[in-house]
């Protein structure tokens, strides 16, 4: 006897078929066709990608540009807490910080979203009511993704019912790495359907995909399956977001829009801790995907400690002297 709430939950659900955009209408007709398509994507020049991000990382962003970059980065932050020890109180205080990141300066923009586990989405929703800040919830057996489809879908529906505006799902890396691409695809399609109105971010967990070629394939797979965002990492695996990975994903969303007209967002998450890292990412977005992506609707940064560093740098620009960790809240 299995213990599930919905007696039909574990019966095989037929994943809904998804209409694919024109040039790719039939790439998912069979497992082999889909594999042929994904492996037919141009290979990534890893050394080239690394030297490109190293070159872009040397861009010097100063004074007014820096002030703009800091405020833009703050408005793109998905302020995240994904700990086993999370409490409603912690989520509420995080929500308060999301609304007014720097209480001493009303000019400081709010963040884009607060990212929590699905069971706390209701608390976050209540605390953020009327602010325009979204509630993002991780779902689908985050962070490992090791559960049956039925459980994953129940997880998603639960988070949406709790008020999540955005769902951050993880792909089945086991299936992806063993080449069962259509399984991964179908799962994303099913999750997208379960999301309803909520936006779907697809976490590729690039730290487990090993190569940049695999990152490119996973990006295309997630975009074809209907993801509104592709996200690098859960933050639970190292390495998390790196610049070369982000470059490959930005190229993917750029090429995908050129081919289909649909604009997908990118969210690096995990490991971005300093303002310098964040600014490097913004430069990369501008130079790779273009300024159309420099908005919180199209680019997000998943982070927790980054926000404090952005605020310290912001205070430095405002006051002319260096600030310290005593002048931002302890999360």
């Amino acid at each position, binding site marked *: 006897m299995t213990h599930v709430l919905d007696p039909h939950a574990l019966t095989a659900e037929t994943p809904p078929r998804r209409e694919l955009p024109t040039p790719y209408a039939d790439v998912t007709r069979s497992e082999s066709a889909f594999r042929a398509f994904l492996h037919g994507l141009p290979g990534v020049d890893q050394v080239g990608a690394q030297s490109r991000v190293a070159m872009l990382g040397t861009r010097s962003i100063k004074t007014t540009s820096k002030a703009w970059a800091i405020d833009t980065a703050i408005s793109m932050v998905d302020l995240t807490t994904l700990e086993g020890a999370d409490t409603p109180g912690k989520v509420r205080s995080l929500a308060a910080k999301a609304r007014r990141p720097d209480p001493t300066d009303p000019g400081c923009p709010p963040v884009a979203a607060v990212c929590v586990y699905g069971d706390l989405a209701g608390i976050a929703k209540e605390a953020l009511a009327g602010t325009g800040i979204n509630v993002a919830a991780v779902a689908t057996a985050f962070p490992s993704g090791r559960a049956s489809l039925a459980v994953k879908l129940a997880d998603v529906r639960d988070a949406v019912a709790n008020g999540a505006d955005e769902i951050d799902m993880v792909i089945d890396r086991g299936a992806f790495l063993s080449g069962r691409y259509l399984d991964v695809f179908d799962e994303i399609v099913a999750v997208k359907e379960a999301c309803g109105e909520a936006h779907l971010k697809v976490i590729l967990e690039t730290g487990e995909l090993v190569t940049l070629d695999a990152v490119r394939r996973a990006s295309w797979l997630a975009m074809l399956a209907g993801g509104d965002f592709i996200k690098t990492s859960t933050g639970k695996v190292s390495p998390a977001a790196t610049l070369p990975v982000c470059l490959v994903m930005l190229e993917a969303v750029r090429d995908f829009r050129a081919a289909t007209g649909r604009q997908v967002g990118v969210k690096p998450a995990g490991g971005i801790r300093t303002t310098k890292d964040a600014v490097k990412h913004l430069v990369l977005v501008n130079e790779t995907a273009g300024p159309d992506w420099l908005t919180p609707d199209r680019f997000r940064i998943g982070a927790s400690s980054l926000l404090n560093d952005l605020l310290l740098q912001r205070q430095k620009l405002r006051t*002319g*002297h*260096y*600030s*310290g*960790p*005593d*002048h931002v809240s302890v999360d």
Partner: protein
Amino acid sequence: MIGNERLAVRKTYKLYLGGAFPRSESGRTYEVHDAKGAFLANAAWASRKDARDAVVAARGAFPKWSGATAYNRGQVLYRVAEVMEGRHAQFCEEVAAGEGLSSGRARAAVDAAIDRWVWYAGWTDKLAAVLGSANPVAGPYFDFSLPEPTGVVAVLAPQRSSLLGLVSVLAPVLAGGNTAVVVTSRERPLPAVTLGEVLATSDVPGGVVNLLTGDAAELGPWLAEHDDVDAIDLTGAPAERAMEFEREAAGSIKRVLRPPAVEPDWSADPGLTRMRTFLETKTVWHPKGF
């Protein structure tokens, strides 16, 4: 057979920051000359961003260093003196060249510096007894006052006495459990560079001492205004700007140790002033048991 004389290796020193030896973020260096004007070496010329990084390193090192037992801190500092002793000849050479001293007087200055370090190492576990107290109160309480370290201390080291002066301002900061960001003598930085190498090869955790070779006039304002620096020692500040630095330090209510009118004779008995300045007295009340 041509030219069998050896070509000397010219040295370009780096900063000592967070337990590592990075170049200045600015890429700047400057030439260091001896008392007679002959070239000695290149030193890194620290920028405000190096100072900022040094404060971050010092703040990061503070919990561990201040949390170590006083006895342990004394052992670690004593070990520094041991390693200094091993570098005795190198210190003598650098002090003699930089300050223009005879070898005898340079040796005396280095001996005094190492002895001074040992003296401060001995003070770590005596501070609580000498500066703390069990206070008499009219009630069923114990009442204790205990000295606790102030935090991150910025030190503008003396400009003239390059080793004895440096040790005399740095060691008291460390003995109390503070971490330090030191701007060394601009004209005579080499003993400080060697002290950095000594610290890196002894047991002092990285970040507890950060040595910035460069200009106190340039870095002083940034350290004085920095919100995450808890105290500043203005000993090596340019006389005409010390007041300005003190005013800037007031913005974040720092402890300030004012500079002496002229650089003192560092061989005199140092007393407890320097240690006491960078200690905060915490008084606790504790109910007596039944």
